[in-house]
């Protein structure tokens, strides 16, 4: 008899349907307002913290729904937002600085489900509210810093080797020019440099008789870029943790960009302040010898440069950097016994050794803390109106703002720990400490994209999305039943299962569901019936051609198959291109569209066949309800 389902088809369909429904279920539980507690700066939580938190809450008669701890988090569920807010304030003051507390929405699905990866869909920021930043890392600055280090290294090596030079300078294009005084020593200099500086290469074509043109090897530049990006990512991650955000995302994008996503953040001004502050700190010695003369003449001798304090006073600093913010392990703001704000700094061992040597040699001299920030400005002409480029866009330039925060006198040999005095106010000291603690950036960053969605709009987007999906589904269902009767019912069963499977796959992959993603689902609802329409029309045709009902079902499914596969693969090509090209929201659309195409092939071809066979298979049928 025709149209009986083989056992293995039943098996596949049953398994897929069961697994699909299981992984879609967590989405039905909803979520509670909650608090997530993590150790600050990646510290782990101690085992008795859970008891402490419980005690604090019950001592203050705060009702909570549940309290649980896993490896890195403590999660507390509440009934309402008011208790959640109250508890956070309370816990913050009781637990102190070593923990980071964040308000969040915690999924309500039972723990055993989450343990095997059955989680609700991961909602994008346009649905849950929050802010998305794209930061551009200024690689030139990171490279330029290494070039300057190399210049210092070359100078001291040549001095040691008694090769005299006129000047050694870093050019703007990243090359170094070493002008050797005696042309006969040029070869020797070049050999020494090649021996001692593996990261450098000498450009013989560009070099002339006296001067060597030296540049960083391309491999080294790649290394610098990678290291700078990675360090920035870590530093940004630490800064984000200081903001108290649940489930923040900090990830690399492309060769020189970093994405930061902060769900639920309301006031982006502070977030921008903390993240975007592309501050790096560098310690440089004051060139005491030439300072007075240089200020007089407004001209700096080689090896030094004039800098300004915030109030405009100038000071001559050596170009050589002693150590930078990267070497700072900890920093805290406080008041000294005179009531003046201070920042206490702890260095890593490398910097501690250097610090101890340099300060030992320079007691009585000053050491300056230089604050560096990169800002992007639009070029203006003399009247202050913007200069436009060929495309009519305003021309931009990035400008480095350098400022001497303070230049305290070294009173004694310093080591691992020391204090900076002479900071304007306690607030300034606090900000400075936070920036130092959170980790300096290896290279300045600039926010080049921001997308913020307020929580009310996020909820509205979810509501409208759900409404559109349901309304679209109902319309298509009504239409299909009217048009295909029993077969219409089959199609809409397949369509409903398709929706469940899309939700299930999205939950399983924890792919981000965005608003365009929801639109993709709605579109899939319309397009997914296509496969069924193709099959059903073919069955009708076969009936018209005089085939028996059973044979028509068989031929209909058989002949429509290759058409369906061809049509879907080409749509999939478009979806994949979309996925590769797209950023954030567009990617979301491509993801749901691709998943929808794949699941719809399963439901329309395999699943609907099993149902049709269940209804008509294995018996004599006079006519089909199609």
């Amino acid at each position, binding site marked *: 008899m025709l149209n009986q389902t083989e056992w293995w088809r039943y098996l596949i369909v049953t398994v897929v349907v069961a697994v699909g429904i299981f992984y879609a279920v967590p989405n039905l539980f909803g979520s509670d307002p909650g608090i997530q507690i993590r150790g600050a700066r990646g510290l782990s939580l101690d085992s008795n913290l859970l008891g402490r938190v419980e005690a604090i809450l019950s001592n203050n008669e705060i009702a909570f729904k549940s309290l649980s701890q896993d490896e890195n988090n403590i999660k507390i569920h509440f009934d309402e937002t008011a208790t959640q807010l109250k508890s956070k304030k309370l816990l913050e003051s009781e637990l102190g600085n070593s923990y980071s507390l964040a308000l969040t929405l915690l999924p309500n699905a039972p723990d055993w489900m989450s343990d095997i990866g059955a989680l609700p869909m991961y909602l994008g920021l346009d649905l849950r509210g929050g802010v998305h930043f794209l930061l551009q890392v200024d690689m030139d600055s990171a490279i330029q810093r290494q070039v300057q280090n190399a210049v210092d290294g070359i100078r001291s090596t040549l001095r040691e080797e008694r090769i005299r030079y006129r000047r050694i300078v870093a050019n703007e294009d990243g090359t170094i020019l070493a002008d050797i005084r005696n042309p006969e020593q040029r070869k020797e200099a070049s050999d020494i440099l090649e021996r001692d500086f593996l990261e450098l290469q000498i450009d013989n074509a560009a070099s002339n008789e006296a001067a060597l043109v030296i540049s960083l090897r391309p491999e080294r530049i790649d290394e610098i870029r990678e290291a700078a990006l990675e360090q920035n990512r870590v530093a940004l991650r630490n800064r984000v943790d200081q903001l108290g955000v649940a489930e923040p995302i900090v990830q690399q994008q492309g060769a020189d960009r970093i994405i930061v996503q902060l769900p639920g953040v309301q*006031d982006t001004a502070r977030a921008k302040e903390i993240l975007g502050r592309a501050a790096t700190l560098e310690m440089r010695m004051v060139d005491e010898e030439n300072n007075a003369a240089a200020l007089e003449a407004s001209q700096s001798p080689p090896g030094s440069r004039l800098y300004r304090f915030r109030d405009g006073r100038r000071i001559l600093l050596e170009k050589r950097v002693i150590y930078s913010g990267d070497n700072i392990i900890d920093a805290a703001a406080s008041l000294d016994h005179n009531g003046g704000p201070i920042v206490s700094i702890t260095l890593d061992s490398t910097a501690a050794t250097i610090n101890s040597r340099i300060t030992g040699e320079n007691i009585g001299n000053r050491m300056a803390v230089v604050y560096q920030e990169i800002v992007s400005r639009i070029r203006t002409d003399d009247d202050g109106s913007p200069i436009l480029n060929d495309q009519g866009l305003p021309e931009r330039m990035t400008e480095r703002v350098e400022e001497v925060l303070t230049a305290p006198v070294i009173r004694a040999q310093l080591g691992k720990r020391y204090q900076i005095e002479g900071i304007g106010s306690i607030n300034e000291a606090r900000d400075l400490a936070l920036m130092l603690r959170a980790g300096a950036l290896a290279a300045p960053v600039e926010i080049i994209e921001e*997308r*913020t969605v307020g929580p009310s709009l996020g909820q509205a987007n979810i509501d409208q999305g759900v409404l559109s999906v349901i309304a679209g589904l109902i319309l298509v269902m009504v239409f299909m039943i009217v048009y295909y009767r029993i077969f219409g019912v089959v199609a809409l069963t397949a369509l409903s299962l398709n929706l469940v499977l899309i939700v299930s796959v999205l939950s399983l992959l924890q792919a981000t569901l965005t608003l365009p993603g929801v639109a993709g689902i709605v579109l899939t609802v319309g397009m997914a019936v296509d496969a069924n329409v193709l099959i059903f029309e073919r069955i009708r045709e076969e009936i018209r051609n005089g085939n028996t009902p059973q044979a028509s079902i068989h031929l209909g499914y058989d002949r429509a198959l*290759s058409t369906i596969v061809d049509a879907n693969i080409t749509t999939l090509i478009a979806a994949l291109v979309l996925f590769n090209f797209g950023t954030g*929201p567009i990617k979301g659309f491509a993801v749901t569209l691709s998943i929808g195409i794949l699941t719809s092939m399963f439901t329309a071809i395999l699943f609907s066949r099993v149902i049709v066979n269940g209804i008509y298979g294995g018996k004599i049928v006079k006519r089909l309800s199609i």
Partner: protein
Amino acid sequence: MQLFRKITAFDFLGWRKTAMIISGFLIVVSIASLVFRGLNFGIDFTGGTLVEVGYPDAVEVEEARDLLIGNGLEDAVVQHFGTPQDILVRLPSIALSEDGGAVKLSSRVMEVLRQPYDETLIDTSSLSTQQCVSGGTVSDCRIQMRRVEFVGPQIGDELANQGGLAVLYALLGILIYVTFRFEWRFAVGSIVALIHDVVITVGMFALLQLEFSLPVLAAVLAVIGYSLNDTIVVCDRIRENFRKMRKSDVIEIMNRAINQTLPRTLLTSLTTLLVIITLLTLGGEVIRGFSFALLIGVLIGTYSSIFVASPTILVLGIKREDMLPVQKEGKSAEP
């Protein structure tokens, strides 16, 4: 219920001259719009700042604009968004805040708009509303920031380039697949139909000066996928008919294929249009442009799979012999 009791026998290919005139007209209008009016690019492509603000009651656009301009934001463009309580403030990428950084403009906009209500946002992490301090008490802000988008100019340029490339790659990928599965004339026919659809969809956006944003571009790519789906179904049938209808001539074979697939073509367009219309009416203001692009695209795509793809294949001179080797290949490649 059935649209047609029997397989129809319309002479679609006989109308190819009329179709060419219609398509030609639409394309000329589209290209002229693109050239003379240009696309109204959204900030995704131009760079700039956009702030959507929710008021407690209906608000006058002029009021908000005067307030912004009076506070140093001369370039602000203000319009209602969806409801009279919502406004959208746009600032070109050329606008600067005092410190020269454009990224802080959005905060400045909110600050200025909150002035008449005498409220200031406080740093709060409440997950449901924004809280303000007003007259010494803390309460929900009366003016709520709904959405901020800031796109730096470098991003805009990149997106525009990548977007163009994405369309090209999609077309190329499809060209290769269809050539492999069918025959080069089918591939060219499909691509001509696709370019036809893309040009007219994008042209409509230029003609009506609707905002062309990133989601709209995504919709255009989805249209490519959809329209192709339609075309492939017809092509597939043409190939099958070449195999079966040994005695008929090419025009008859192709006409027959279009007629055989006609109910399916119309039906799928109908269900897809149904959901697009729900998206358009219920999906909210943010994805309106996206839905509209889909609407145009699906309409044009349906038309082109019937009246553009097949005539192109015919004009390229398809013959039965062309289908023979591919027939074998097609069969063995069938899963």
